[in-house]
């Protein structure tokens, strides 16, 4: 099998698919040219994420990651969610990704960062830009 059981479980039974209505922050990462496009939505109440959802153009790694992460951040403060996105916990919790699909998991984490950044921007909240290392960080380059 290309993917382990944890990833397959999340892929086959994903949670939080689809856009969240009246969301407070949206993060979009990726490109159709290199495969995955993740759009992650958060709803925030008093600094706490109350609900989250995702849209994805991607394979099992992207869907499983988005399912796991959108579930894991519910009830968390924005700063805790940001820590989670930067921590590598996703990789650990899902038991590791095949090297060729690691990029998808990274994109999902970056989409969460982008959604939080979007929330901060929308609400005039200041932040340290170094917390948002968004970009195709693990990608070895598009050949298009």
């Amino acid at each position, binding site marked *: 099998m290309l993917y382990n059981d944890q990833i*397959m479980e999340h892929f086959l039974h994903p949670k939080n698919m689809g856009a969240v209505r009246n969301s407070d922050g949206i993060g979009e990462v990726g490109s159709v040219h290199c495969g995955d496009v993740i759009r992650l939505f958060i709803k925030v109440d008093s600094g706490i994420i109350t609900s989250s959802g995702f*849209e994805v153009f991607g394979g099992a790694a992207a869907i499983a990651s988005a399912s796991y992460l959108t579930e894991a951040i519910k009830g968390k403060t924005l700063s805790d969610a940001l820590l989670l996105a930067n921590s590598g916990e996703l990789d650990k919790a899902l038991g590791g990704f095949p090297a060729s699909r690691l990029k998808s998991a990274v994109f999902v984490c970056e989409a969460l960062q982008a959604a939080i950044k979007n929330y901060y921007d929308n609400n005039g909240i200041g932040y340290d830009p170094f917390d948002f290392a968004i970009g195709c960080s693990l990608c070895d380059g598009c050949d298009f």
Partner: protein
Amino acid sequence: MFTYADNAATTKLSENAKKAMLPYFDELYANPSSIHSAGQKIKDDINKARETVAEAINASSGREITFTSGGTESDNQAVISAALLGAERGKKHIISTSFEHHAVLHTLTKLKKQGFDVTLIDPDLNGIVPAEKISSAIREDTALVSVMYANNEIGTIQPIAEIGAVCREKGILFHTDAVQAAGHLPIDVQQQNIDLLSLSGHKFHGPKGSGVLYARKGIALSRLIEGGGQEKNRRPGTENVPAIIGLAAALKESVENIDTESEQIRRLRDKVISGLLAIPDTRLNGDPEHRLPGNINISFEGIDGESLILLLDNIGISVSNGSACNSSSSQPSHVLRSIGVPQEYIRGTLRITLGRYNTFEQADYIISSVTKIVSYLRSFSSVFKKDGEEKLHAV
């Protein structure tokens, strides 16, 4: 319902081929190079298999048939042999197409590094390389033209008889990789002006690890590895006897039933194609008429093929996203790119390849399952436009 629809990747071994092979795993184990009667019996059987293969492709004799380990080896040996023959006469230009199997393309890359000049012709948008395109690329120093009979991903059939005629007229060697065609399309090496032809046993219900290289009489093949004098000095190493016997039995069976079987598979194919084209924002890749009886290569906008394949697999349907050799890479197929499939479709591509053992019930199951899963994946796609919604396309 278990539905194997990846027959371009490999096929199930036929019962006849299996039966033919079994004695060679058992009491018929002698080495065909031995001079005792047990060995000579095996040698005779291999030569009978050679005659069977020769007859199936209308070669003039079994001497033109070399057994190999498969399509990849045959392609390598054909291309390298022709290149070396050309180089001996100062001809170092090779023409092929940009959507050949990697067994040809990567061999050409190697030859390029050794000083050969390679011209790769792009197929037209219907996935067919017209003979005129080949003809106009021919130069004084062209040694070889290599064009596949049918493409492994999109199934499009190339005008090989015409290309063969052009090459024959100009005295240029013509090789065709007929790995996907054998057993499904007629092969007549004489009438189609073919000098070198590659076959792979497991694509027509023979065993894996078996292949054929046809080389017209008078074309000297170069050895890829050194060793004993087996296969008339063309392919050293003790013969894979059961595989050779199985290949010949499977090819004979396929060729004998080619008309009825192809017709049945084509009917299944057309049913699945029309069922799937009813899904909105879907396109069939490659010419709808000039394609292998079992090939369906179809793209759905806004979803990723891997998700689709794994969800189909989860309900028992085995299909592929392009060539099977490519599944570990996330690079879009070189074949789909070469025929200009739009970016928003290219990743949502399925290759469904039907074969002898597929049924109408399975065709229905494929249609209903793919329809459901495409709609499910699109319901949370980040790039697919749903009714009345504007999707932002990420850069």
